[in-house]
């Protein structure tokens, strides 16, 4: 957990302009085609499918027209090739009321997916390829439009992550309370990734972050310890030598139910907070969120202090890095126009760190345990974190410059 409540807030017009509320459909408008030859694609969302009329389009403007054929409200997403970053989305698509999402896409690999009921990981995820058309994609719009779009896109990302965190937490809690410890252990780092990607957001709701994510050392004498790490210790019980010299006492059935149910309830509250109509983020919260997530890596993941019993620190590391990239990508185009050298530096050091970490696994296929890394491997990762940290720390200043 991060103890910092709020980052230093840069008072600048650009930040104020970015306080937008996200209601329905907000395309990611970082880019715009200078010559418009829009491609139209039809999408049909059902309870279990997300049928798309074409799996590719030339670069430039793409109009997705989504028809909802199920009986629940649905959402449609275009995701970047990492499957996480949201390029554009349409929310609250009612049955029988088609909606069009217009976005500009550069050449590359993407995914499309629908989310009937607006919760869970989504259905019918399919690869979507954008071919090189020669259409030049470049920045446009005034600062207000750009920052509003960036902030709105980030809010959508936060909601998306929380929408996956809720069922993932429930599955974990169910396995844990059923005594299926093998399943609970495998679900633990997967579910936490949704939380770690947006940790600065959870932190902004005061008590929620300590109640969900406090480590044992964070808890003062006499205070109650709840959340993920309380259950982590129960799932990976320490030897007496690692427990201050006393034998670890497993939680009783009643204690398990109490902590697990509170974890569920607090996660639902987080979901309520980010889905509240008034929930917004400012543009500097984006760049500072990226910086804060990397600080998190530097302070507790690279040291193995976050997951002291499960040693799943590299999952958190990857998730923090995912969240940092998402926040960075949101402001990247704006900063590129002001300080292209800085963007080049961040691009290369961020990609370098991602590559370093990928050598140890992935969230999908699993990572090496932190305590399996050699001292040299940890030192190399720390070097990568510092290499990225230096240019990334200048992002907010460049953004509001």
């Amino acid at each position: 957990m991060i103890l910092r409540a709020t980052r230093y807030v840069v008072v600048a017009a650009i930040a104020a302009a970015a306080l937008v509320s996200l209601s329905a459909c907000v395309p990611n408008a970082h880019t715009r085609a200078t010559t418009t030859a829009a491609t139209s694609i039809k999408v049909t969302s059902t309870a279990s499918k997300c049928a798309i009329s074409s799996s590719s389009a030339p670069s430039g403007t793409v109009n997705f027209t989504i028809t909802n054929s199920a009986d629940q409200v649905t959402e449609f997403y275009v995701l970047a090739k990492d499957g996480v970053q949201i390029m554009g989305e349409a929310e609250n698509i009612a049955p029988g009321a088609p909606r069009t999402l217009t976005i500009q896409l550069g050449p590359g690999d993407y995914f499309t997916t629908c989310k009937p009921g607006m919760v869970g990981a989504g259905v019918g995820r399919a690869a979507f390829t954008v071919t090189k058309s020669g259409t030049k994609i470049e920045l446009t719009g005034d600062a207000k439009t750009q920052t509003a779009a960036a902030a709105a896109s980030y809010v959508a990302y936060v909601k998306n992550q929380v929408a996956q965190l809720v069922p993932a937490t429930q599955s974990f809690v169910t396995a844990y309370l059923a005594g299926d410890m093998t399943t609970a252990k495998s679900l633990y780092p997967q579910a936490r990734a949704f939380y770690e990607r947006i940790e600065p957001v959870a932190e902004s709701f005061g008590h929620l972050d300590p109640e969900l994510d406090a480590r044992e050392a964070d808890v003062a004498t006499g205070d109650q310890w709840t959340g993920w790490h309380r259950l982590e210790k129960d799932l990976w019980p320490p030897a007496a030598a690692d427990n201050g010299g006393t034998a670890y006492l497993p939680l009783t059935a009643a204690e398990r139910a109490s902590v697990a149910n509170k974890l569920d309830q607090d996660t639902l509250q987080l979901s309520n907070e980010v889905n509240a109509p008034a929930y917004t983020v400012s543009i500097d919260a984006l760049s500072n969120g990226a910086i804060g997530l990397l600080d998190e890596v530097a302070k507790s993941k690279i040291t193995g202090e976050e997951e002291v019993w499960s040693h799943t620190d590299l999952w958190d590391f990857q998730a923090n890095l995912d969240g940092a990239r998402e926040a960075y990508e949101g402001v990247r185009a704006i900063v590129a126009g002001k300080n292209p050298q800085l963007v080049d530096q961040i691009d290369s050091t961020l990609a370098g760190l991602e590559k370093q970490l990928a050598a140890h696994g992935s969230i999908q296929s699993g990572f090496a345990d932190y305590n399996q890394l050699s001292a040299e491997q940890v030192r190399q990762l720390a070097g990568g974190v510092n290499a990225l940290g230096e240019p990334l720390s200048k992002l907010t200043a460049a953004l509001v410059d």
Partner: protein
Amino acid sequence: MTKSQSTPAAKTRLSRRGLLGLVGAGVVGAGVGLGIDRAVVSAVAAEASAADSSGAASTYPFYGAHQSGITTAAQDRLHFASFDVSDITRSDLIGLLKDWTAAAARMTEGKTVGDGAVSGPLAAPQDDTGEALGLPPAGLTITFGFGPSLFDHRFGLATKRPAALIDLPHFAGDMLDPALVGGDLCIQACSDDPQVAVHAIRNLSRIAFGRASIRWSQLGFGRTSSTTRAQATPRNLFGFKDGTANVKAEDRTVVDEHVWVPTEDSPAWMSGGSYLVSRKIRMNIEPWDRSALGEQQRVIGRTKGDGAPLSGGSEFTEPDFAKKHDSALAIDADAHVRLAHPTHNHGAVLLRRGYNFVDGNDDLGQLNAGLFFIAFQRDPRTQFVAIQLRLAGNDAMNEYIQHVGSGIFAVPPGARRGSYVGAGLFES
């Protein structure tokens, strides 16, 4: 140390296996230190350091109503050591304290330990280790304390433990390394010359072999507090001035009320003493260095340049915690200066005497750096603990620090000439 072999006092017998003689001669500046106890420079030392402009030849008296090294103007260097007492008897322990007292009194006068470093038989190792030969005392003070664990069953002291000498609670965020916590005894050696401070701990630990051994120790290279008005406020490794609002020796009534244990507090053997709390605080300086100046100033609640509170004024202007800039508090709700301020802690204050440290680097190739916090107070329950409970859960600075070591010690009053440090504990 300077020409100690030429002074009569150097002939006082001192064997590291049993100090019998008690040093009397050669003491300078015998004034009892209630406030500043910086004493007159001895002629011998002054001669040796005539070219030294830093006042390095200063000496402070070892004997007196209070131990030196508390309200003494904070020296530039620290060597602090915590000791575990071996399986010895109560009288052995008293013997150790007598030996330490005699050696400490000599070293603070700029003299060698025992028979010196070079004047004994060639066939024998010498009493003094020798690295301080030719160096002035540089304001050396040596301060002794007793940890809670000394008051167990071993030495018949269980009923003598002061109520104020508590076991510190676990504070939120504590990442204490058991190897850096606690101890039966402690010695704080401060000097303006690092080699003089190290010489003191080295020789005192050598004297203790077989009776006590070092549990953990700490070198500090730059004071982070001023304890007198004559001193400029130094900077800690965050780059900020530290100790602006510290208790100063000149504030006699504050010192008497908040630093020294008064006669009305029990136990009686602690009257004129104080309680020392040490915390090894690791600073996460790499993330700190990457944080914006505005963020750093928000965390501290002061400007980095002058150390003025963000509510305005200059360094010594009282912070105005209610002041607002553009409807936001000028000093953040969780700024360090706000949460640590006496007005937010029922008037609790500490005499801080901390030092910067850099213990090489960690496994990640980052500096193992921070602040070795030392504070003196009348009662840790209402002073350090009350303040730290507030800071541990709320201070914006917590993101950039980790407490990794901890100690609490009862610092008895100063020894009378002819007696030894802590005599009151054993003779009451």
